[in-house]
């Protein structure tokens, strides 16, 4: 009985550590992405000064129509960020937000592996494989 309870205790302790790590990855990703998105938005209004008002004739629809173009591949994005365009920063923050759940899966693989939990490690690797596979598919089939 004594051995069982100490085993449970060490499992619990590991689990707490794991939860803390996953939580940390989430917080860094989420805070960083919202800071980048917010700065991008501020920069955007500085670069389009005529739009930063509540009482003029400019309409938001110039930016929300389907024909409004923005960097949607990595080389365009890099160029936009290097030119210090607000839109480039917003897209970078948005991409970081998309990557956050994938980082979470990746962290979980490491956690299950260090715990010596092979079945859950395989399960999580399988999830990451499907995830990256669907990403590749999305890039190929437009």
């Amino acid at each position, binding site marked *: 009985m004594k051995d069982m309870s100490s085993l449970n205790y060490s499992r619990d302790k590991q689990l707490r550590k794991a939860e803390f790590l996953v939580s940390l990855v989430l917080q860094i990703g989420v805070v960083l992405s919202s800071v980048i*998105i917010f700065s991008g938005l501020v920069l955007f*209004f500085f670069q389009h000064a005529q739009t930063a008002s509540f009482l003029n004739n400019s309409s*938001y629809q110039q930016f929300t129509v389907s024909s409004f173009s923005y960097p949607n591949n990595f080389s365009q994005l890099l160029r936009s960020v290097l030119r210090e365009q607000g839109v480039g920063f917003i897209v970078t923050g948005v991409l970081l937000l998309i990557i956050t759940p994938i980082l979470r899966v990746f962290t979980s693989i490491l956690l299950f592996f260090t715990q010596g939990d092979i079945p859950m490690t395989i399960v999580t690797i399988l999830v990451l494989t499907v995830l990256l596979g669907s990403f590749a598919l999305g890039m190929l089939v437009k």
Partner: protein
Amino acid sequence: MTPLAFIISLALISILAGLIGALVGLGGGVIIVPVLTLLYHIDIRLAIGASILSVIATSSGAAIAYVKESLTNLRVGMFLEIATTIGAVSGAYMTTWLPGKILFILFAIVLFYSAIAMLTKRKQTEILTVSNDKIANFFHLHGEYYDENEKKVIPYKITGTKLGLVLMYIAGFISALLGVGSGALKVPAMDLGMHMPIKPSSATSDFMIGVTAAASAGAYFARGQINPFITAPIAIGVLIGAITGSRLLNRINSKYVSVIFIIVLLILAIEMLQRGFTG
């Protein structure tokens, strides 16, 4: 409306969407898509792209608090994620084949069904102390959580893993198809299908929703469906709402969470049905 007024009003609506989303374990997407199309007259394709981002923001924002408070069952989440991600991949293929009207009507039926299932089985949701489920035992999926209302740790056993996997495949499929988190299907799959108590069920659902949404977000990005100007206020607003909502969740009684959940399901079902018939 000027661009600045657009950004600020949309950010405020997104805070509300994130708050409700976190409380009931749904993504903000179900609120964001109608707001963008009906209120701001934005193209439905761009609305869905922004919606999938709000779903990720809700999930990540809410999960920060849940994971800390140990409500999320990480093992169950990861195990079921196999089914949701495969479902999302096949759902992404089907989007181009099925007419939108049929999809909305199908989803409305699924929502009505979930609401009825929650209503009738809500009182009977019993916490198991023994499980004969071989898969659940093999992967040690069972867990426990600290309930702030009852002031004690509640252990629970998982069962019905095969049913859970099938339901999660459907949830992932619909998530990719409509650009929503489909927490409305994930929570009942765990709560009713696998005997997981409601609080860990909705926390684990939120945890899973982001991973499922990330599977289709890459495609939306490559297609140019994620407009940064629309997405920016939604991402920030939903994050603020989701973090606030998830801090409230553990202080609200399970019954209230369930009642809110059922009401939201019914409202969404009517909304979906209406959109299915009016186009």
